[in-house]
């Protein structure tokens, strides 16, 4: 089975990046848009071809989906421990190829309209190419180190794209914030990687994930502070994943990241990069599950559930539509994490794993659609705030309908894509952990409520008087909306449980009607409340906000997490600790170094006479050197 051509999938966007980056000034903007789209289209076709080949032709041997690895050694540490570079093909990597290539292609097409007339048009597409390369590389990584390298590359491209409007101070600080927070989390990831390398002697996913392999069987061999060393490693790796996937308490960068252009938010901060954390846990799932009876996996479940609820509450109170969507993303990522957290391994037991991947897929579609729809709205009214919108359904019919479809899908309306994936998650949670199930149902209701709050707020509600009459976006923007709306409606019918499972053996998943009924009812209640509050202009919502008073204010200010971080970093870290260290550094470390430096110069000055320029002196030194060496090593230093 030859999957070598897969390497082209990341390399083509990289080539686009170099092409557009190097000839930035020489390429006409229109052309650069086409180059970007063409590159991604090629990668996309290859991805679909791979998926077809893998899922339906070569992938399955005796009912079990195989892992194909093609790699070359990049760097040797010891005889056994090496860093490889290569591609790994298995169900989740192929699924991610599909997700990334669809969303990235849609965003490329959409950006041709959205970014039109922007000064850095070509640069924008170059960055998109860099990002696509990095995320493809991340998805296809064969080992922990390779994934780490691409992980950081993804972070860099995210940084570049958030700070794309670099003349806006808020965008610059948002970019910095995202980079620093995720880098900080990545420190945990790196330490985790090193621990794994040290104790297991390999970075390869295949070896690490083998349930009969030494990594999993011998986990108990070393313990550290009450847990096995490998559990610590997995927790640290999860910290890295939590940073990228904006899990509590490392979520603070995601809302600010909305400063980037909206297509970027759709691509990176909704559909692809932020799911990297989920993907990482799924990638190492057998380790998470088997080592120490899934201790680390429980942490994943609870962090996911908490983040999910926390973000959903904040989302209700936000007035910037992109921020609502950002918190919604965080909430849904929490959903995926909790699904992984409650999952088992074999057969139907592994429902959570499959549901998580399923939800990752469907969420990518409807969340990207929501963002692109929001972008279309923002494009029309030139504002991010709900107060500047209202009644837009008359002006933007396509955006209205597609946004409604996405909102129904995320709310879990029956037969939409989100309905199926969310149902599987709730079933998995119900079977393993009732508390988490409860949280899941609550979040489902909240999700439906806040999503229809902004839907009604944007397209219905008050009849705002606009300075310029808003109009529907151009075709380049509406076509991706329509395609994604189609996917948001129907991708739920993909038989995921046959294709993507923890133990690679397909099983039959059925709808659990009682649980589905509960979820749907809760969702409908959420939608209904939103209908009552926001469909027509009224002051019901303000009254409720007043009733909840302080709690509403808390949630509106995102529970003051930014302020807490500011206090810790500014007051304690910078002034308290860093200040004193800086003094120590300046006085003692620098002092010593400067002393050595000055002495070096002095010595250098003193010995300059040795180089006299006279060849007889040189000959003397030569002979003297020989004599001294001979004396020392023959008479004095003979062992």
């Amino acid at each position, binding site marked *: 089975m030859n999957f070598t051509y897969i390497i082209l999938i990341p390399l083509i966007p990289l080539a686009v990046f170099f092409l557009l980056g190097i000839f930035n000034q020489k390429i006409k903007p229109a052309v650069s848009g086409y180059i970007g789209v063409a590159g991604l289209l090629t990668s996309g076709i290859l991805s679909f071809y791979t998926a077809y080949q893998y899922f339906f032709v070569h992938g399955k041997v005796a009912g079990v989906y195989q892992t194909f690895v093609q790699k070359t050694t990049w760097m*040797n540490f010891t005889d056994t421990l090496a860093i490889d570079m290569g591609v790994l093909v298995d169900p989740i990597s192929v699924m991610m190829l599909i997700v990334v290539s669809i969303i990235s292609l849609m965003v490329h097409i959409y950006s041709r309209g959205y970014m039109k007339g922007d000064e850095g048009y070509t640069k924008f597409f170059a960055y998109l190419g860099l990002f696509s390369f990095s995320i493809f590389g991340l998805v296809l990584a064969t080992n922990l180190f390779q994934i780490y390298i691409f992980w950081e590359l993804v972070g860099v491209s995210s940084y570049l794209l958030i700070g794309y409007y670099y003349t806006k101070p808020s965008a610059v600080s948002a970019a910095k914030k995202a980079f620093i927070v995720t880098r900080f989390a990545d420190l945990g990831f790196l330490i985790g990687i090193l621990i794994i390398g040290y104790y297991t002697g390999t970075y390869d996913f295949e070896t690490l994930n083998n349930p009969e392999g030494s990594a999993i069987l011998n986990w108990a061999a070393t313990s550290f502070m009450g847990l096995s060393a490998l559990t610590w490693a997995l927790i640290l790796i999860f910290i890295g994943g939590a940073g990228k996937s904006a899990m509590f308490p490392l979520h603070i960068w995601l809302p600010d990241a909305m400063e980037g252009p909206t297509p970027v938010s759709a691509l990176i901060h909704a559909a692809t990069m932020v799911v990297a954390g989920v993907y990482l846990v799924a990638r190492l799932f057998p380790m998470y599950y088997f080592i120490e009876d899934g201790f680390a996996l429980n942490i994943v479940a609870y962090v996911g559930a908490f983040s999910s609820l926390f973000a959903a509450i904040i989302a209700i109170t936000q007035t910037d539509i992109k921020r609502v969507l950002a918190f919604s993303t965080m909430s849904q990522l929490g959903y995926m994490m909790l699904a992984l957290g409650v999952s088992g391994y074999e057969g139907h037991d592994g429902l959570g794993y499959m549901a998580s991947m399923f939800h990752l897929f469907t969420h990518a579609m409807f969340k990207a659609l929501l963002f692109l729809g929001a972008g279309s709205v923002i494009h029309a009214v030139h504002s991010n705030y709900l107060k500047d919108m209202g009644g837009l359904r008359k002006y933007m019919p396509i955006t209205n309908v597609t946004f409604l479809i996405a909102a129904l899908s995320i709310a879990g309306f029956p037969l939409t894509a989100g309905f199926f994936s969310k149902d599987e998650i709730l079933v998995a949670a119900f079977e393993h952990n009732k508390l988490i199930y409860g949280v899941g149902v609550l979040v489902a209701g909240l999700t439906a409520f806040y999503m229809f709050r902004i839907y009604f707020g944007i397209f219905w509600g008050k009849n705002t008087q606009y300075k310029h009459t808003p109009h529907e976006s151009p075709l380049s923007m509406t076509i991706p909306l329509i395609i994604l709306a189609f996917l948001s409606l129907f991708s739920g019918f993909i038989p995921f449980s046959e294709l993507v499972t923890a133990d690679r053996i397909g099983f039959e998943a059925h709808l659990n009607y009682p649980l589905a009924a509960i979820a749907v009812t809760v969702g409908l209640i959420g939608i209904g409340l939103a209908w009552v509050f926001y469909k027509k202009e009224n002051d019901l919502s303000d009254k409720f906000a007043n009733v909840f008073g302080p709690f509403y204010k808390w949630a509106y200010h995102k529970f003051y997490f930014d302020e807490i971080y500011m206090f810790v970093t500014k007051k304690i870290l910078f002034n308290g600790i860093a200040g004193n260290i800086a003094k120590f550094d300046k006085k003692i470390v620098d002092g010593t170094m400067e002393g050595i430096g000055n002495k070096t110069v002095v*010595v250098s000055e003193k010995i*300059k006479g040795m*180089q006299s320029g006279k*060849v007889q002196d040189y000959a003397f030194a*030569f002979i003297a*050197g020989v004599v001294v060496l001979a004396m020392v*090593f*023959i008479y004095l230093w003979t062992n």
Partner: protein
Amino acid sequence: MNFSNFLIMRHEILLLAITLLLLVGEIFIPKNKKESLVHLAIFLFGIHTAVGFLQLDESTLFGGSFRTNNLINFFKNILNVGVLIILLQSADWLQEKIVNQNRGTEFFILLFSSLLGMYFMISSGDFLMFYIGLELSTLPVAALAAFEVSKRISSESGIKLILSAALASGVSLFGISLLYATSGSIFFEAIIEVITANNLTILGFILFFSGLSFKISLVPFHFWTADVYEGAPISVASYLSVISKGAAVFILMILMFTIFKPLMHVWENMVYVIALATMFIGNLFALRQQNMKRFLAFSSIAQAGFILLGLISGTQLGVATIVYFVLIYIFSNLAAFGVVQAISLKTGKENMNDYNGLYRTNPNLSLVMLLALFSLAGIPPVAGFFGKFFLFTAAASKGYYLLVFLAVVNVTISLYYYLLVIRAMFIRKNENPIPFFKNKIYMRLGLIITVIGILVLGLYSPLYDYIYELSSVLN
């Protein structure tokens, strides 16, 4: 005897043929068309370099006087690539300054003769062949150093080189005769069998070692280096600093890892001391230099000190790291010398102060220099970092932690003076900086090859693995 056996001397025969061809060309080509000989010489040498990469058998000739194997062949290829770059970088100088004196061919003939000597030296199977190779490699370079006859400083450089070299050869030859006295043979194979660590042998070894140390510019046999580099034409200085030094390192390594292996307990201490002295003296002197050629001279002395860290380990790892380091060093140093040469040729300026503000007027040259100096200083991710890092690994693997620590201190000192040049180019302002100029095609090619080398060698790990594999012959 089968004549096809002579094919293992392919490098030597081909180079000799090219040299003779040029000699004939010198006679028959009319005066006003001599310039074409420069193109011809570079073209022929390019072919020679390419042919060198073909596989060669492992064999010996002349009753063991001449031997070759894949590692030795690889050495020759490294030298070829280096010389090719030097030729490319010096083509403009030859065409502008030398050809009209009707001495262009002379340059090539002398240079190729010297290179031929190095081939024989590296391939030698006994001390006689070694000595002939050594002399053949040194004498033409003295003539080359004095090549710019109109300049007094060039003549001075030539005379200093020939006097010092004569002394070194004499000492070396004395050492060889002592070794012959104790072992009764000049064949390496025979000496390996009988060598023991008695005083006379050790004395012979020390004398021999001193002679070769002269070529590598190890302290205290280094004094000639700066003066000769400063006076000699830049191509010759760069030839001395990379090719001549590289060849001497290779043969020294071969001999120390084979016939002098039984004396290792003696020479490891000696190498330890000399390594430290070389690094410190080289760096301390480099700190003060204003002339770029002298600066690079001392920098190259310090670099030689680092090479000894691989030597001291005495293992296959040591061999591989030395070869790898020398390869990277050739590219890095030739990039630096190439920039100095380009600037010197266009403006005649060779001082560090003249480089102030170079980045504004000549960004490309400044970037090449930046890469070269980063590589020499050992800053990741350029190749020089890996070269040094591996050398340190080799020394540390034998437990020489203090030596590695002091070497790291030296890396820090060297970083300081390399950054001085970078500061001059990128940060310092200048009222009348070196004006913008465009290099001709040969020079540009010469610089591009070095840049590719610096960028690729560090990251392309199969090359290191290949070298490591080759290195097994010395164990």
